[in-house]
């Protein structure tokens, strides 16, 4: 095989173009290496333009090659998009977090990929660039072709960065997962929320759970039921019931039954919602 470490985005795109579909983008390699290396690899892990975390006005841009470790310890992400920091901190192990990237997490398209679930709750969009230099911006939900299958063709397209609105003064986000142990185990369930409060009641809610469908799944009914409600114990219990009733999930012989998964989604939905609310209240108090 041939291995090419790109020094710039243009160089990476050129190599992809000349390889005519035979070369594949590689970032941290934590997914690709075990699946099998392509005959030509174009390594984009150290491209500076893909490794940046920048705030521009009310938006945060996170480069596709930002590692989970970098995202989890970024003060900007911790303060303005706590759900993403929590999700990245939960991935694998320190060693995997030092290699694995946010872009790779998304394109690998595992149904309960931690970073992807948090990004979906934050309302992130992906910025892509193809070999002809054409850029487009896509909703995360549009990037899934099926279970573990991305619509992104990494032989002719590169994810550059993820952009989303930062959490404002009245907004908060949170992420939680349940797995058999804390390190090195894939989640049975992961849930993330982003909330906005106005006059003490929910004015905006995005609640995302996985694995439910191939892509991280918004729980629209539960979200809607929350609008106008006060965040309190009663609301939390309501969310628990609504969220587990809303999802149709599959069980897995290895990890957990469908009933258990549904139960967990309810419990975690209640928890992340209240954790996100607490983040807003903390800002108001300080």
């Amino acid at each position: 095989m041939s291995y090419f470490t790109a020094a710039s985005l243009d160089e990476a795109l050129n190599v992809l173009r000349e390889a005519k579909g035979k070369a594949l983008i590689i970032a941290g390699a934590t997914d690709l290496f075990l699946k099998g290396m392509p005959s030509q690899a174009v390594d984009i892990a150290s491209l500076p333009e893909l490794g940046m975390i920048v705030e521009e006005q009310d938006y945060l841009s996170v480069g596709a090659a930002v590692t989970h470790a970098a995202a989890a310890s970024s003060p900007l992400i911790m303060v303005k998009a706590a759900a993403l920091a929590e999700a990245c901190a939960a991935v694998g192990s320190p060693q995997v977090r030092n290699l694995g990237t946010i872009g790779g997490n998304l394109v690998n398209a595992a149904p309960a990929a931690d970073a992807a679930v948090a990004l979906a709750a934050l309302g992130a969009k992906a910025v892509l660039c193809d070999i002809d230099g054409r850029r487009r911006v896509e909703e995360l939900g549009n990037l899934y072709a099926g279970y573990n299958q991305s619509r992104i063709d990494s032989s002719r397209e590169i994810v550059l960065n993820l952009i989303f609105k930062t959490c404002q003064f009245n907004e908060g986000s949170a992420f939680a997962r349940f797995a058999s142990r804390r390190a090195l185990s894939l989640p049975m369930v992961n849930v993330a929320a982003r909330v906005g409060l106005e006059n003490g009641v929910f004015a905006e809610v995005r609640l995302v759970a996985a694995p439910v469908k191939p892509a991280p799944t918004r729980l629209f009914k539960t979200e809607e039921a929350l609008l106008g409600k006060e965040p309190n114990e009663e609301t939390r219990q309501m969310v628990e019931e609504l969220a587990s009733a809303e999802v149709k999930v599959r069980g897995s012989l290895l990890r957990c039954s469908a009933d258990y998964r549904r139960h967990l989604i309810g419990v975690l939905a209640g928890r992340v919602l209240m954790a996100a609310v607490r983040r807003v209240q903390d800002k108001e108090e300080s």
Partner: protein
Amino acid sequence: MDIGKITFLLNDEPVTIYADPAESLLHLLRDQLGCMSPKEGCGRGECGACTVILDGKAVNSCLVPAGKAAGKNIRTIEGISDGKSVHPLQRAFVEKGAVQCGFCTSGMIMSAYALLAENPAPRQEEVKRAISGNLCRCSGYKQIEEAIMTAAEEMNENRVRFVEKEQKE
């Protein structure tokens, strides 16, 4: 299999080898460079026995394609002592009984080494987290955590002594 020329720094020494870039860094180190401290436990990122430090970060060498190592700075346990005496981490592991069969030990120590480079005075929780990607089948983690805390203290005392000495001179 295509063979390519790969150059990197291994424990501060430049090495150049000819290898398949799709080979794992772990196999490269063990089979071609005779660097036997990284161990192959699972070969899939789940046990940490193969942990090495790549540009300052602990990584699973079984997941790193050789091609990625090119131009990088790689440190294994062979490169953490000064060649005269063992590193405080190594000494603490022996003294605290943190080694039984030893299969996990070099990986554990490399994870600890990366932690102490970034955070010289870690809390117990931070030590636990730093070695959460390293499995030990024998010794239990208590002695390992103790060894890392002890080494951190010793290294900090050495630093203080060094500064005091400098100030006197």
